[in-house]
């Protein structure tokens, strides 16, 4: 018998639903502001200056995006893990994949945060 890593934990299941509820709010707002209600005929294409002006308009946009980025990275990686856990990977591959998801999640959050700092700060 090969030792199995087991299915998704209750905490992982619970956090996926809670982060999902927050993401519903974050995504509706984000898509409306930056995708759907961006009027191409009067505002032109999105560039650094327009994004910066948008983000600088309120300190809440900074709070918003610094919560949005780690939340979506967690939800994506936890979701991939939930799919894999259904196939009950054996001990070794399970640990390697879990570590990989954590690393990708952290890199995604770090790159996202650096991007935001540059957009808020005005870049070089």
């Amino acid at each position, binding site marked *: 018998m090969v030792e199995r890593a087991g299915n998704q934990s209750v905490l992982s299941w619970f956090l996926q639903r809670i982060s999902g509820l927050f*993401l519903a709010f974050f995504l509706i707002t984000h898509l409306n502001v930056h995708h759907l209600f961006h009027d191409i005929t009067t505002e032109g294409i999105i560039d*650094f200056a327009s994004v910066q002006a948008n983000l600088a308009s309120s300190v809440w946009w900074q709070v918003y995006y610094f919560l949005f980025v780690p939340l979506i990275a967690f939800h994506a990686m936890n979701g991939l893990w939930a799919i894999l856990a259904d196939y009950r990977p054996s001990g070794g591959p399970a640990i390697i994949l879990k570590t990989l998801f954590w690393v990708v999640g952290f890199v995604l959050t770090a790159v996202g945060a650096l991007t935001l700092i540059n957009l808020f700060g005005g870049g070089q």
Partner: protein
Amino acid sequence: MMAEKSKLKGTVADIGLNKNLGNLAFWIHRISGFGLTVYLLMHTYVLSSAISSPRSFDARMGQVQNPFFAVLEILLIAGVLVHMLNGLRITLIDFFDWSRSHKALFWAAVVLFALMMILVIYLQLPKFNPENYGMGG
């Protein structure tokens, strides 16, 4: 590895064997979730050009704003809405023990999706005209 492979084969057979709404919703959720994760990585990569300079950000953002990408953007938003509405359906079923209404919730999600997509396509219309690009900015 052999065991994992046979499990994957079992999954493919499972889709054909369980022809019901719940199983369809399950697979739509997995596939859309995987696709959105791939998009999230690409989105982060494109925007990360802001780290090197505003000019490289503008160059890369210029490449992804045209009528072709406006169509892709609709597919993206459709994916987000599908995953969001079904995710809310799953959360309602899990938290409020509504599994007996899972089919009604599925059709409610379908109706909401259709209504939202009409609005999305309407709002995207100006982006289908190439002449609308290149002004302002």
